[in-house]
């Protein structure tokens, strides 16, 4: 009897340790990386550099937050880069309507793309990978047609501060938008019915259906959220760079997926969250920054990034396996 209690408590300790690591493991990795960076490069800790990092990660961060919703349901959204690029074209192409109307139209069109993806996945029973792969290609095609293959120069006046502005002369406005987005996503995922449903659908679709959850509606919603945030990121970029371009988002879907995965959200769905994604985005952003500061050539940077992504996710899967 005594022996039994002993094994039980040891078992509990292990569980507690691994759940601690599961929760904070990537934060530890970020901290170590941060510390290493500050030792390696004297420039790293300067406020101007740190805020530079936060600005650089904001756009991909916002897209990754949207991606998190989709991946939590067990789906994937490959169309975010294209939707993002299309939004830059809409806001620049419609600048004669004024900044706010152009931005609103860009966001609404983005949501329509998401609605389409959601309907294809739920009613059309397409695999998310295929549905959004098709959309990814098609939306770029629409963009090229709309812009006749040329970049559209000049964002409308009136909203440029969201891309270029700073608060107190140093905090990039983009970063504030990223923080607000992440905070809102965190609250939605943890404190609302929709959030619970997202996790439930990702964890057990049939179980969710039998608990009265409209699985289709949840799935459609996450694709709309993802596309909306991709469009929102596009609006920021157009105002930042002052132009729009149909191919500007190419590859961003993969960066976003990488950030989500590094942040601890499992691609099978059901576990993870927005906070993890923020950490994932920062890990990749800090690493990028360091590689630039110490003048690592671009090609080598890609190798290092690839290794880090695999290593981070490997670390999590080792944790996961040890639990079983």
């Amino acid at each position: 009897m005594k022996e039994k209690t002993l094994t039980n408590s040891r078992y509990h300790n292990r569980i507690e340790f691994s759940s601690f690591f599961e929760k904070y493991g990537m934060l530890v990795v970020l901290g170590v990386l941060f510390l290493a960076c500050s030792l390696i490069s004297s420039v790293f800790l300067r406020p101007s550099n740190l805020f530079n990092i936060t600005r650089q990660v904001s756009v991909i961060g916002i897209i990754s937050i949207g991606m998190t919703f989709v991946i939590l349901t067990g789906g994937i959204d490959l169309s975010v880069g294209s939707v993002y690029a299309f939004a830059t074209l809409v806001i620049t192409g419609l600048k004669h309507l004024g900044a706010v109307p152009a931005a609103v139209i860009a966001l609404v069109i983005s949501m329509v793309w998401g609605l389409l993806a959601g309907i294809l996945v739920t009613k059309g029973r397409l695999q998310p990978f295929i549905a959004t792969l098709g959309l990814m290609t098609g939306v770029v095609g629409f963009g090229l047609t709309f812009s006749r293959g040329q970049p559209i120069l000049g964002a409308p006046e009136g909203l440029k501060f969201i891309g270029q502005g700073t608060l107190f002369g140093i905090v990039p406005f983009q970063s504030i938008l990223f923080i607000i987005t992440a905070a809102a996503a965190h609250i939605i995922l943890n404190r609302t019915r929709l959030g619970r449903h997202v996790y439930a659908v990702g964890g057990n679709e049939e179980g969710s259906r039998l608990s009265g959850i409209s699985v289709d509606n949840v799935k459609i919603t996450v694709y709309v959220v993802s596309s909306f945030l991709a469009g929102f990121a596009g609006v920021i970029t157009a105002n930042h760079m002052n132009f729009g371009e149909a191919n500007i988002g190419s590859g961003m879907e993969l960066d976003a997926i990488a950030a989500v995965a590094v942040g601890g959200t499992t691609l099978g769905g059901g576990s993870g969250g927005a906070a993890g994604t923020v950490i994932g985005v920062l890990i990749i952003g800090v690493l990028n920054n360091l590689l630039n500061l110490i003048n690592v050539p671009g090609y080598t940077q890609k190798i290092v990034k690839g290794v880090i992504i695999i290593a981070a996710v490997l670390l999590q899967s080792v944790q996961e396996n040890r639990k079983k």
Partner: protein
Amino acid sequence: MNDEYILDMKKITKTFPGVKALSDVSFACRYGEIHALLGENGAGKSTLIKVLSAAFQPDSGEIYFKGKLFAHQNPISAQQAGIGVIYQEFNLVPYLSIAENIFLGNEPVTKAGLVDRKKMDSAAEEILKGLGLNLNVRTSAHKLSVAEQQMIEIAKTLSLNAELIVMDEPTATLSDHEIEFLFSTILRLKQQGKTIIYISHRLEEIFRVCDRVSVLKDGKYIGSKDVSDIDKEILIHMMVGRTLSDYFPVNKAKRGDKVLEVKNLTRKGVFKNISFDVYEGEILGLSGLVGAGRTEVVRAVFGADPFDSGEILMYGKPLKIRKPINAIRNSIGFATEDRKQQGLVLGLSVKKNITLTVLEHIRKYFLLQMKKEKALVNYFIKTLKIAAKDQDVLVRTLSGGNQQKVVLAKWLAHDSKVLILDEPTRGIDVGAKTEIYNLMRELTKKGKAIVMISSELLEVIGISDRIIVMNQGRFTGELSAENATEEAVMKFAIGGVE
């Protein structure tokens, strides 16, 4: 050693945590006979077969096959030794051809090390011919009917030169016509000198094809008989005939108003004209053998599966149930037979599972009220005595009994009036079972109506106030608690005995 027997299993014992699945079971099989293995669900048939096929290792006991001690560590070496098992779920690879499936993992190869397709195809054709089948061996497996797939499974065991072939409920998913063909195949195999162990609970089939029958009950060996010496009554008596132990709570609740009424529910090809009702404070047992259509009926009532015709009424008011949410809004809760796949989100916490159906009641504007949620969950953890360290423990880590309590809590949190419990104690150890029974009684005292499906006769009889029985998609009888004996229920379950 007796060389009359191809297989001689002696004093096999196998325990799982909390359950003694087999205790001292001895089972012997003669060369060239068709031997039926009979017993109700949970009697230990499947476990015995898994021990034979070396999928499980017994705790104690010996197996002799063809007079030699048989001690194989894994199913592959058991197969090579000449034992072929055809499980209820087939293991065909859908997009490989018939021949490729038959020789999967055992492909003939050419000198160059490539698969010798010609040889494989002709060998496959020969085996199929021996089974009286005329199929193109290049056809891919997913195009085959269930019966044809089963034949391919049989062919697979023959390709490995199996001498003893075990068939687990081979007729469960076949039509009458297909069953006839299966029987002729089985007799053909017997003529070719194969020995067959035939697992079924359809008694008439045993009398049609089998030579001998052995009966298991509650993990114990009851006896073996020549089929020609016995009749159905004797078999039923061997399968059941226990006394009710006192671990069922007896104090029944007062019966109140009629809550749920199901009228002439029909789903073509699945179940037909099923009607029943259940009252406040009542436990209605839904009995029948596996495959009788019980789960299908309750899934239709809950809106999980569609139905073609019939009516569902709640307090006399007709309901329109198309989706689970319709049933849930009308205070019907459904604890599925498969907790892990359908009842719970294993990767979420106890708290989040319990409140999954009531999120709209604990939110203010858009935000869930964490305090209110916590209090609600605490209440259920206490009243149902859920053994979890705290609310945030993942449901995955709980025992079967506690997982089942979480499922119950989920529906109680929603204040369900009718609880449909499909095999509520499956996979739960004995102590926890009693707790679940007590809980069910407590609930009826609070006016809940419970519809319970169970394949354990003892359980149905012990806990139900009333029992209805189904056989092959049809209603075959109703019994009150006083008249319910295992024999009586079993008679209805096998379709009624004249």
